[in-house]
């Protein structure tokens, strides 16, 4: 019983982390029709930035650090989008190759800057004491992480569905040319979306730090998870990314605990089934 409950909580916290990773990926993929394979690297950059800052200044708060790292990664992402990706608007293969190449570059740069050893990110002091619920002991930080993901989901939903900016972005997705003809600066909005997606990944990287640590290869571990979540949930659907994150959180946690040697089969099999039999994903629009 203890095993199931603890693993259940681990699944939830991984799900929350996956949502912070994949919501930005899904936004960028859904709105810009751009499979941003640099996304895992953005997440890893966030983790390294966070690890460095938190270890250098012991008084630093992890939430402020996540915010700062989010802005830093958003700025890097924005530059990348403006300088390179805007030139590849009608070239999906070029986008795949360029974003993959950029991801290798970032990952190598991190290796040069931070070395090959993993760097732990300290859990915030005030969240180190475990929380007791119904006689079970839970790591408090993991519970808070789930709360963060839910908060981010609500904020993103509000931004995209309830604000004029969100409606303008969706108008640009519906009919880019016509959106421009009513005065919507579509390409600037897409840069904002890209920055936002990269920024959430960067902030998520910091918040995931106490669980994952910063290490070379973190990007390559996270990117496939983001892909699976988004394909399972439906491309461009925030609800899909949310539900997909928690489903994958459970599958991955229990899969690796119960059948450690089959982890990748357990992970990728659902993705293949979805692509083959329900290509729009659980919550995606048909043809998306």
């Amino acid at each position, binding site marked *: 019983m203890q095993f199931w409950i603890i693993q259940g909580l681990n699944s939830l916290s991984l799900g929350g982390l996956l949502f912070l990773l994949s919501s930005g990926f899904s936004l960028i993929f859904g709105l810009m029709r751009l499979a941003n394979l640099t996304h895992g690297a953005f997440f890893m950059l966030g983790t390294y930035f966070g690890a460095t800052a938190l270890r250098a200044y012991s008084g630093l708060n992890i939430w402020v650090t996540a915010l700062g790292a989010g802005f830093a990664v958003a700025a890097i992402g924005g530059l990348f989008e403006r300088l390179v990706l805007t030139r590849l608007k009608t070239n999906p293969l070029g986008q795949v190759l360029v974003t993959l190449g950029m991801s290798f570059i970032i990952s190598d740069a991190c290796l040069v800057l931070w070395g090959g050893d993993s760097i732990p990110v300290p859990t915030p002091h005030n969240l180190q004491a475990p929380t007791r619920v119904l006689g079970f002991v839970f790591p408090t930080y993991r519970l808070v992480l789930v709360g963060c993901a839910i908060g981010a989901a609500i904020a993103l939903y509000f931004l995209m569905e309830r604000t004029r900016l969100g409606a303008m972005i969706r108008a640009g997705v*519906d009919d880019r040319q016509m959106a421009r*003809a009513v005065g919507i600066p579509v390409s600037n909005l897409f840069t904002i979306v890209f920055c936002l997606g990269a920024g959430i990944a960067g902030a998520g990287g910091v918040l995931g730090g106490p669980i994952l640590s910063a290490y070379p290869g973190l990007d390559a571990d996270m990117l496939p998870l983001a892909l699976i979540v988004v394909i399972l949930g439906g491309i461009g659907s925030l609800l899909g990314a949310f539900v997909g994150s928690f489903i994958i959180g459970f599958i991955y946690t229990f899969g690796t605990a119960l059948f450690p040697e089959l982890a990748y089969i357990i992970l990728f099999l659902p993705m293949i089934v979805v692509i083959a039999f329900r290509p729009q994903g659980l919550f995606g629009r048909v043809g998306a």
Partner: protein
Amino acid sequence: MAAEALSLTNVHAFYGDSHILHGVGFSLQAGGVLALLGRNGAGKTTCISTIVGFLKPKEGEIRLFGEPIGGLSPERISRLGIGLVPQGRRIFPSLTVRENLIVAQQRERSTEKPWNVERIYELFPRLRERHAQFAGTLSGGEQQMLAIGRALMGNPRVLLLDEPSEGLAPLIVAEVGRTIKRLKQEGQSIVLVEQNRQLALDVADQAVILNTGRCVFAGNASELLNNDALITQNLGVFHAH
């Protein structure tokens, strides 16, 4: 009143390699309605696409109240005051009716009586009833009203309507005609592209006929009404009465 709201001078435009507009030139008087007529493929929609910036003119000049706008980006041209009701309506299907209007709101300070969602709903009460509905689920006539409302939300100095009666039932066509007249009364400068000559000449002061990318007539709309030869040659296959 004599000011030129929109003027084209010797405009040449291409789709890829094909030369569509061969030196088109005309001008719309401020507060007037100009009917842009011609057969299918005469270059009417290309002309509109060039004015709004979807196509860059290879040669020639386009001016909005004297300011050159040829070759600018569509969003820039829109912000300077060109409103478009495109052929096929092209409303944003996954946005609600209300969202379709608010995303297009701009230039509120350019006029004393700016358009807002409330005024559009007064103009088209059907849109108020449907305000929370996804625009893609509207009927053709309702989509046309929404497309006109969306263009007005930008408070355009010149409104371009590309075949607003296309594919609509006669009753709705009549309503579109009344709307255009009402906008004209309010002083809106309008370029109206129409296959429905009756509708167009009914409201227009000026008329321009394009034939294979060239202007073959530019003058008062009334001159066209009695000029059967010109009409037969450039517009109708048959001249039906």
